[in-house]
């Protein structure tokens, strides 16, 4: 009967003359301190005396908002701590992102984004996020090394920018880029160099840099902390754990990109003067690819037709002059107007084009699921209230049969006039 015995003992009162009973709880000072802290700050989740997380139900109720009908609104997303539910308090004024300046960092972390065409991919932003995770809180700073001018790197999390904007680095020049990175890094002696592990950009250059520095890099890293890098290896069956190497090749979604509430200054550094190294590789430029032969999932620019398209010659002509891959909704593929492998959507292809041009598509959920990863959407539809129009970054309420030939004509005039 251990339970009953404990209950009886709890009832015992200290007898005069005897030493007071020991209170094991009171002896756990850190726990009490944490409890006192929790009472002061009112945070709902704290560390208990044994080191486990404890949820304080009273604080949860205190922090919860109330709906118009007076019911409790408990937010379990974990973001509650940052949101003030203090009704009646003054509205928070949005002053834009907070600018972070680091003057004299304790160490440097170099990030080399792919930055293709001067644009940051989501993979690039993730790598910056991972670099900030290492530098924040340890007084480090992040240097971005890029080879062309473009998008603002401060918003992604770069404190400094080293831009080698020279024709020698244009196109496929991984040897020269690697040599420039090593030369640029020599002046800073960075703790780590981070690259997105992409096939012919970051992954290629990063491995060259590693070979030059005689480093064995951790590749396909999906978790990075100051003392540990975890790579997915062995054909995605195992995780290899090790101390972070100097060069790190980061997987996509390795870390969250920094929030929109922060911004770094991205101050320009003067790139060191370097002699472009001799190379035996010559870049002969991109090959013209037939957009019709590019699989829809890989296409960069997709023009898509729905039930609102009746003039198919105009559609095909426009796709050809634009050099875009053709796609369609399920309705047109069912009707045999486009082959099945051209269907965009949940039961077709999930595309990740940079730009999606939708003619006469209503935007059914199954269709929209196929284009969640498209960056920009242009919708042409006669229905102002179509979901596709809502999704569009540019929407025109107009007959598709009129707009398609107008675009083709515009293009022919430009090409002819140029």
């Amino acid at each position, binding site marked *: 009967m251990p339970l009953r015995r404990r209950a009886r003992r709890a009832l015992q009162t200290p007898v005069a003359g005897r030493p007071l009973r020991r209170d094991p709880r009171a002896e756990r000072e850190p726990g009490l301190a944490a409890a006192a802290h929790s009472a002061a700050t009112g945070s709902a989740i704290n560390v208990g005396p044994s080191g486990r997380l404890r949820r304080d139900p009273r604080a949860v109720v205190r922090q919860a908002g109330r709906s118009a009908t007076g019911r409790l609104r408990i937010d379990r997303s974990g973001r509650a701590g940052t949101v003030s539910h203090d009704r009646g308090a003054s509205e928070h004024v949005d002053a834009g992102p907070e600018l972070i300046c680091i003057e004299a960092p304790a160490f440097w972390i170099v990030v080399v984004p792919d930055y293709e065409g001067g644009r940051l991919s989501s993979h690039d932003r993730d790598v910056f996020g991972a670099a900030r995770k290492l530098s924040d809180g340890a007084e480090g700073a992040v240097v971005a090394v890029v080879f062309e001018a473009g998008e603002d790197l401060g918003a992604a999390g770069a404190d400094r920018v080293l831009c080698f904007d020279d024709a020698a680095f244009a196109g496929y020049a991984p040897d020269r880029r690697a040599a420039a990175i090593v030369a640029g890094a020599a002046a800073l002696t960075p703790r780590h160099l981070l690259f997105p592990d992409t096939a012919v950009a970051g992954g290629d250059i990063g491995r060259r840099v590693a070979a030059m520095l005689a480093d064995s890099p951790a590749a396909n890293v999906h978790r990075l902390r100051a003392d540990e890098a975890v790579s997915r290896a062995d054909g995605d069956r195992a995780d290899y754990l090790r101390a972070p190497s100097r060069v790190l090749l980061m997987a996509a979604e390795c870390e969250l990109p920094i929030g929109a509430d922060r911004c770094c200054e991205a101050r320009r550094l003067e790139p060191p003067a370097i002699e472009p190294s001799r190379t035996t*590789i010559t870049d002969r430029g*991109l090959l013209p690819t037939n957009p019709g032969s590019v*699989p829809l999932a*890989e296409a960069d620019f997709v023009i898509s037709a729905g039930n609102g398209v009746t003039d198919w010659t105009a559609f095909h002509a426009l796709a050809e*002059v634009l050099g*875009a891959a053709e796609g369609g909704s399920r309705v047109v593929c069912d009707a045999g107007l486009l082959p099945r492998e051209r269907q965009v959507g949940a039961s077709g292809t999930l595309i990740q084009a940079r730009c999606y041009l939708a003619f006469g598509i209503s935007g059914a959920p199954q269709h929209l699921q196929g284009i969640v990863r498209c960056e920009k959407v242009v919708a042409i539809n006669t229905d*102002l209230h179509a979901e596709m129009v809502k*999704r569009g970054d*540019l929407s025109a309420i107009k007959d598709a049969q009129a707009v398609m030939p107008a675009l083709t004509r*515009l293009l022919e005039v430009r090409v002819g006039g140029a």
Partner: protein
Amino acid sequence: MGLEITVLCSLGQHPGSGRPRCATADVRALALALQLGAEVSAVHVGDPESAALRDYLGQTAGRRSLECLDVIDVPTGRDIRPALIDYLRQKNPDVILAGTHAECGEGSGMLAYDLAAALGHALVANIDSLSVAADGSFELTQVLARGRRRALGVDGPLIATIGAGAAVRPVFAYARAVRGQIRRLKPAVECPLFVAPSIRPARARPKRLRAGSGNAAERLRAASETPAGQGRLLVDPSAEEAALAIADYLRAEGLWPPS
């Protein structure tokens, strides 16, 4: 023509069953070399007894297959690079082909880069085709993201890597797999032991969710509703106006005029 190609062959494993087999990317590299009509040799560093090595002998492309696979006998757990560098120095082929990543083990994709640094060869990643121009230089096409291809020219000795998605596909012939020879070689140099990394089985990585914020109703809306583009809306423009607006938009995206 006298072009000599050496293909580096590693052991792979089936993604589902985990059975040993030849590595997909290396098979593609072998097929590319055979197709070219060059003098092809292939080398594996590891255990000559592995049954899966015979898979390489059975791969045919352009009606040709390997007659002999060189296997340098190095026990597992050792650094294979010294043995391989020594072998390639002796052999001195014009082109070395390898897969981008190994399918077993760490698969960091560093091997080709270490070899290129040691041998002083030019390296081109992720190629799709290879040919020899009239002046003896190499013409390559490189696979880029989103279905694009880049043409490259290379003078002098070359190491190229091939991805598992390359277009060349060999045909397997069982009789040739049985008939082919496996030649055992002893490593001429010392191969140091590798430091064993700490390994744990991979767990599925959580999918990244679109970060919803605010209360439950807002999060439900964010998860279930159409994400609205922050776009311009043109209500009943003339066809020319609409076309101009779209053209301007595409120009801002770098897609107009099309190349």
